[in-house]
């Protein structure tokens, strides 16, 4: 038992460092860093490269990675990116860090190669010395974790409590605006906080590598546990975050003591520990305060006064988007775009038509983000999990129970819609960032708990799911997929034009305003959550039909991150953008490989990640804003042709239905 507690303290200590890094970045810079795990991975992989692959001595390798590279990444991120985002909405910052989490691993792979590393060294000299204390073994690596955690947390406490720098950081937490007006320097404080945070990420990566190996995906486990502690701490209380981190580490370890070793139950239960902690603490916070929001207690009146109008929303207003574009252009541009995509399979080589089949399935899935994030303004990171559940259920129904495959797809999608509504009910009283955290953790939970069940896994080959007979060829499947994409797009456009669309928009911008108007926020949120989950289910089933196999591994939360970054890069509120995003996701790596070299395949996710980082500058997506610009130029050109001056009031030329916003994004 003691052995398990010792191991739990090691893991808990690492989680404590991670949660500390996340909390200090959130409270002082307003950024919940979803890229924390990727940064940890980058530093740990660099350490492996220096120490093992380049045979550098231990001390310089550790020093360079821990004290130079980690803080340097933080300084770079702050100077290049986050210092320009101080007043950006919280969700924009979250999506940008998700973009970073997607871009960083392929950069590391480009630099150091795509090597599978199951066993990575820690920061202890090799061979690792083992101590025996009270009948239990403690390795030098474990001892160094204890020393690191105690030293870092101790120094952090002293700095925060007893130094001028610490006072500055605490002042920033209370009110960045007042700190600035009082002569403090938020720039320097934020820079220091970012450097400390990424230093902690680096330390976590180097300490965790010997325990979980070196892969970017493995580090998402670190994020899940650290996020659970951060939720317990309501994003702000460092002491609670550290205490809960240790509790999660010990709970996970002690469970291994009680559960049968190497059993499927054990491997299934362990990933659920962070989720259980999140649920317990959220219930506690909701019972205590009624609602949990990331905005609670943040900043003073001055800070609230300078928060940009619109608070935490992702996409810009219609005025900032499609304003100034002739309604006819707005109406016809996406129709022409869809028409072009319909013609493509007749023009392309069968190889590319095969890729297009995958692209259309991905586009269908991405429409779920268009709904839940674009229309609903909620960042749900579990959409890919809904897709996976739907694919697995549809495969079971179609292949094992002999259902017609399209009926199986429909039923599995409806089942997923119910799950979406249930998760929506769980997250109703949560702020935007909490919703992102809970849905992410729920996704990771299902990934570990459900997708790994033998009935779905089938020894790693998954369950067969055939395409419908009439769509067995790639070309026919592309057209089937496109028809469903068009139907879902029409559904989304219909929602936008309906009273429910107006109400959804109202809820997206101001829940309080909507509620006092008589709109049920609960109904609106559940409506969009249910439909979005249904669409994700359709997308997942189509993705499985395209590969003819349903396998949980193809629906990882990390892949969901990539899909999200691609979509926000292109345009999160446009149905046609979802199609372009699907095509980009599938075609771009292939084009890079064909035109340049196989090594350049890694550039695609880097480009997508960088695209998501552009969200602050292009809230409607790069492609959609480009289309708006082109639309405006075309509008001006048409007006000149028809003799109208450029100063013609745009208000006078609105669509026939004045109750609906005019936007190319439709």
């Amino acid at each position, binding site marked *: 038992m003691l052995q398990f507690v010792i191991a739990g303290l090691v893991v808990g200590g690492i989680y404590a460092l991670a949660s500390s890094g996340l909390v200090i970045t959130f409270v002082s810079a307003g950024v919940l860093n979803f890229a924390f795990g990727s940064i940890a991975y980058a530093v740990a992989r660099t350490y492996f490269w220096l120490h093992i692959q380049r045979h550098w001595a231990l001390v310089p390798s550790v020093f360079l990675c821990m004290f130079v590279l980690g803080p340097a990444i933080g300084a770079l991120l702050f100077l290049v990116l986050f210092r320009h985002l101080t007043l950006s909405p919280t969700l924009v910052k979250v999506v940008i860090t998700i973009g970073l989490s997607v871009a960083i691993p392929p950069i590391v792979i480009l630099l150091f190669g795509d090597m599978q590393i199951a066993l990575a060294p820690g920061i202890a000299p090799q061979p690792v010395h083992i101590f025996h204390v009270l009948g239990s073994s403690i390795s030098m690596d474990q001892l160094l974790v204890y020393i690191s955690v105690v030293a870092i947390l101790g120094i952090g406490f002293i700095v925060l409590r007893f130094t001028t720098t610490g006072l500055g950081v605490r002042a920033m937490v209370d009110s960045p605006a007042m700190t600035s007006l009082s002569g403090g320097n938020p720039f320097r404080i934020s820079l220091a906080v970012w450097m400390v945070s990424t230093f902690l990420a680096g330390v976590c990566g180097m300490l965790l590598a010997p325990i979980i190996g070196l892969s970017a995906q493995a580090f998402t486990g670190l994020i899940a546990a650290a996020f659970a502690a951060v939720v317990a701490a309501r994003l702000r209380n460092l002491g609670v975050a550290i205490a809960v981190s240790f509790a999660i580490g010990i709970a996970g370890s002690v469970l291994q003591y009680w559960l049968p070793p190497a059993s499927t139950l054990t491997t299934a239960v362990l990933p659920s520990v962070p989720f259980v902690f999140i649920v317990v603490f959220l219930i506690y916070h909701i019972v205590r305060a009624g609602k949990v929001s990331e905005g609670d207690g943040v900043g003073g009146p001055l800070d609230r006064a300078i928060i940009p109008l619109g608070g935490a*929303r992702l996409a810009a207003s219609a*005025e900032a988007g499609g304003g100034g574009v002739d309604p006819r252009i707005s109406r016809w541009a996406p129709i022409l775009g869809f028409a072009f995509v319909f013609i493509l399979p007749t023009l392309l080589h069968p190889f590319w038509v095969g890729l297009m089949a995958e692209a259309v399935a991905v586009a269908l899935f991405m429409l779920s983000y268009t709904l839940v994030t674009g229309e609903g303004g909620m960042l749900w990171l579990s959409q890919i999990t809904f897709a996976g559940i739907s694919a697995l259920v549809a495969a079971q129904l179609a292949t094992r129970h002999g259902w017609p495959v399209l009926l199986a797809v429909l039923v599995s999608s409806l089942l997923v819609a119910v799950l979406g509504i249930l998760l929506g009910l769980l997250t109703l009283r949560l702020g935007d960032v909490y919703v992102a955290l809970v849905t992410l953790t729920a996704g990771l939970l299902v990934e570990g708990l459900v997708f790994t069940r033998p009935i779905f896994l089938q020894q790693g080959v998954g369950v067969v799911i055939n395409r419908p007979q009439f769509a067995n060829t790639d070309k026919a499947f592309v057209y089937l997929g496109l028809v469903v994409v068009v139907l879902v797009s029409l559904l989304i456009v*219909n929602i936008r034009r*309906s*009273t429910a669309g*107006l109400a959804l928009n109202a809820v997206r911008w101001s829940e*309080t305003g909507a509620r006092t108007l*008589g709109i049920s926020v609960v109904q609106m949120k559940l409506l969009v959550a249910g439909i979005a989950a249904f669409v994700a289910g359709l997308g997942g089933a189509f993705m499985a039909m395209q590969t003819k196999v349903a396998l949980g591994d193809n629906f990882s939360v990390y892949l969901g991150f990539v899909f999200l970054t691609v979509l926000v890069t292109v345009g999160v509120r446009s149905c046609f953008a979802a199609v372009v995003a699907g095509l980009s996701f599938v075609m771009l790596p292939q084009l890079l490989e064909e035109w340049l070299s196989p090594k350049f395949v890694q550039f695609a996710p880097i480009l997508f990640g960088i695209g998501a980082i552009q969200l602050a500058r292009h809230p409607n997506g790069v492609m959609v804003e480009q289309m708006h610009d082109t639309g405006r130029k075309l509008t001006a050109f048409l007006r000149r042709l028809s003799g109208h001056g450029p100063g013609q009031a745009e*208000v006078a030329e609105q669509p026939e239905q004045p*109750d609906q916003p005019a936007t190319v994004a439709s």
Partner: protein
Amino acid sequence: MSEPGAPERLARAAESGDVVLAGRSISVRFGGLAALEDVDIEVPSGTIVGLVGPNGAGKTTLFGVLSGLLRPAAGRVELMGADVTNRSPQARARMGMARTFQHLELFHDLTVRQHVVLAYRVRHAYKRLWSDLIDLRGWRRPPAEEDERVDGLVSLLGLEGVAQIPVAALPLGTTRRVEVARALAASTAVLLLDEPSSGLDTRETEQLAQVLRTVVETEGVGILLVEHDVGMVLGLSSMVTVLDFGRCIAVGTPDEIRVDEHVRAAYLGDAGATNGSAA
């Protein structure tokens, strides 16, 4: 300027049961702090009732209780004679209560007209929130009565020129009027205005005051007005309730409030009241 004969109207309205909104013996506590203690307030239809008090007096808390965003520790809220103390804000809204906010709670993607349309449909065609998704009515022209009411309100509030513009692009003074238009679109019986002149210059404040007078005359709604600008409240209201430290210290006509010793003491301190430098 208060309306002539307003106290008599108020008295008649109260006697005839024409009080559209009432708070009876409202108490609210935040932990150990008593934010409101046994406060009573009534808003008759077709009347503007002012609610004033120094910072921390409990005005916004009382507003929250009346609109359903806060639950009182004791007391009850009556809307059109019905006890709505435990009803949600949206339920109260559907019964005819609307409110505006000191910090605007508008929907930035929606145009001015869409705000009014949405409020109208929530009150008069709530089923459309769901039925539009099936019967595709969103693609058809709206009913004539909806257009008539919406355009009438847009015109009443002087918003014709900006009706098709998303509110995010409008100046503060205009968006205050959008909030009022939106509130009225729901066939409101009582309108709660929270610091409507906040952030407005003198000209915009006067325009807003004129709009409110017109609204009361033409729509017959009861208005509860919370405002820091005491001059505006005394000029507009028929009756004024004054809060201080969570207690009701005075109720009366603007003229009565102007000379009330307790009110002067609350605003200016005892010395100010003694010296006669009234608010």
